[in-house]
């Protein structure tokens, strides 16, 4: 056996057999050394720090040559205890926490959480129409930006660089809209219990209309690159197979479920936020594979644009309506405005609470330090996030802070299908299968 002194690769004898650590460097020496052993079965740790595992995901692959005999996922590397933390903050502050869970779909986390809080408060029907339409519009923009990352990084992980560049170019446009509306590009804490943090700034709708036009035009670039591309098809067609029976028993939702031909989308099946009033289709394929999921995501982009256009038309009619519930015991008191210095309290509001109205000052102080009380009980609200059913379990004990916040994140659940999709396939196809699940580790680990 050759001995080598590569500082990046070493090996040691353990009770489980010889373990090789490789962190880059000289692969030839390693291949030579492994080739000298008789064993055909190799266990490979892919990740958690690996550029193609879609985040800090650790895949433990058992291989016979190039074929995978067993796959397991190691998760928890991004566990931040967000659910525990929310129990120590008031209900409104919870938004700031949950928006950081699945960091590619912050608006969905916020909306699901706020719909739950509103259900507990019993004010679901008091949320103004303008606030709801803004939520829908922001969610659909977020679906586009999330799908852009799914498509871009998915293609990148399979070795196609250009789709990633196009996808991130479009995502940038969507993030500009987020910045214009909420002041932040991600983790906006924009949706609040009772409405949204602030109304659209002046001129936002015309910018949004222009963006929709640009996006619709630019989406064609990626479509031309990938749809029907023979290399792309060879890498994705028939890969990562999971049929309807597998999906239901594993609780899989989202594009993976729709790639089995079942048009299950909570926006149609169990509408929330007034989705029943919008015209849109649910794209499906019946191939159960990575290519089918890719096509679904591509088509959902157009459907999201359709919904955004309808939102813009509605918002033009709803000009001037409030974006927060009227009940001053619940509505967050600050009146945010995007000023020259970024986002802050509007000067008029500060003048009012500091100099003119004792009542406003008291409300502001009480709501900000203590928060509003939420009647005891538990609810489950679910919305259709880009990755599937995003469910929120909320338990209140009647206090100003949540008793328990639990997110049923679609990434967490869907990642369980990795083994079913990968076992029996090739190592290279693991990357395609995991990319088609589109897990976001922030959501998986919370």
């Amino acid at each position, binding site marked *: 056996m050759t001995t080598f002194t590569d500082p990046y690769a070493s090996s040691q004898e353990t009770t489980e057999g010889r373990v090789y650590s490789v962190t880059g460097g000289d692969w030839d020496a390693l291949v030579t050394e492994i080739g000298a052993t008789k064993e055909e079965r190799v266990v490979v740790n892919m990740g958690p720090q690996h550029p193609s595992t879609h985040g800090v995901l650790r895949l433990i692959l058992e291989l016979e040559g190039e074929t995978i005999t067993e796959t397991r996922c190691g*998760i*928890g590397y991004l*566990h931040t*205890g967000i*659910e*525990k*933390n929310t*129990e*120590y903050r*008031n209900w409104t502050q919870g938004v700031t926490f949950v928006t950081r869970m699945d960091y590619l779909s912050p608006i969905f986390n916020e909306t699901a959480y706020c719909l739950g809080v509103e*259900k*507990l408060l*019993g004010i679901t029907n008091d949320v103004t129409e303008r606030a709801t339409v803004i939520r829908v519009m922001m969610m659909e923009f977020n679906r586009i930006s999330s799908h852009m990352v799914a498509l871009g990084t998915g293609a990148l992980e399979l070795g196609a660089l250009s789709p990633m560049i196009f996808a991130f170019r479009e995502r940038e446009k969507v993030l500009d809209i987020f910045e214009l509306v909420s002041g932040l590009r991600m983790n906006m804490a924009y949706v609040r219990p009772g409405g949204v943090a602030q109304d659209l700034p002046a001129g936002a709708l015309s910018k949004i209309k222009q963006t929709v036009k640009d996006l619709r035009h630019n989406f064609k670039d990626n479509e031309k690159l990938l749809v029907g591309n023979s290399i792309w098809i060879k890498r994705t067609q028939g890969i990562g197979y999971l049929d309807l029976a597998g999906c*239901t*028993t*594993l*609780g*899989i*939702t989202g594009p993976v479920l729709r790639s089995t031909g*079942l048009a*299950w989308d909570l926006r149609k*099946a*169990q509408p929330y936020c007034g989705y029943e009033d919008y015209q849109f289709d649910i794209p499906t394929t019946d191939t159960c594979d990575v290519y089918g999921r890719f096509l679904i995501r591509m088509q959902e982009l157009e459907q999201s644009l359709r919904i955004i256009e309808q939102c813009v038309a509605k918002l033009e009619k709803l000009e001037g309506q409030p974006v927060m519930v009227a009940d001053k015991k619940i509505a967050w008191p600050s009146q945010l405005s995007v000023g020259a210095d970024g986002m802050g309290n509007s000067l008029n509001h500060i003048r009012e609470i500091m100099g003119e109205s004792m009542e406003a000052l008291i409300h502001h102080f009480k709501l900000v*330090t*203590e928060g509003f009380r939420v009647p*005891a*009980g*538990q*609810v*489950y609200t*679910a919305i259709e996030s880009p990755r599937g*059913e995003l*469910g929120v*379990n909320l*338990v209140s*004990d*009647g*206090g*100003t*802070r949540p*008793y*328990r916040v*639990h997110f*049923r994140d679609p990434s*967490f*659940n869907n*990642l*369980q299908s990795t083994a079913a999709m990968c076992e029996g396939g090739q190592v290279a196809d693991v990357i395609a299968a995991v990319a088609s699940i589109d897990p976001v580790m922030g959501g998986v*680990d*919370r």
Partner: protein
Amino acid sequence: MSEKGMFGVSGSGDTSGFGGLVNSTVITGSTQRPFGAYFDQVADDLERAYPLFSDAIEKVIVDRGELTLFVKRDRLFEVAKILRDELRFEMCVGVNGVHYPNESGRELHAIYSLLSITRNQRIRLEVSVSDQDPHIPSLVEVWAGTNWHERETYDMFGIIFDNHPGLTRIMMPDDWPGHPQRKDYPLGGIDIEYKGATVPAPSERRSYR
């Protein structure tokens, strides 16, 4: 449940009176028929398919338009199987744990959210066990997707799911002591040391209730 005081005042010479406040909370009691919406239909179908219904279901709560069936843990597996096979609740979308330290004898709750695509309905199962005997039968055989959810609930609450194929911690490191989402487990709990200075753990800092 009750909560004493306000603004986290305790053991001080507080004269504000906030420390003497007692907030008590009433958790909704059992709901009687009719339950409303599709809930009567679900209960009827389950009673028809499962003769031991009255023995297995401790109580039914309909609150805020959602149905919760409180199931005895010994019957949970049977009830789940019938809900899947006869009532066509094809999916268990998740398991959620809640710790109620004041409910003696039933401190730990596991809550299963079920979804039927065929019926387009949702219901919820709730099982409660005591701290001393935190065993619940695993539903992985019924819905394979509960695998990770049960591991998470075990990790966070210490509920042991019997017959689970591999009940190990999922979020926390394998050698982590304690179950972080329990109410007696402090947030953080460990002082933060940085360059010789110590910041008290978040659980030791001032809090507002």
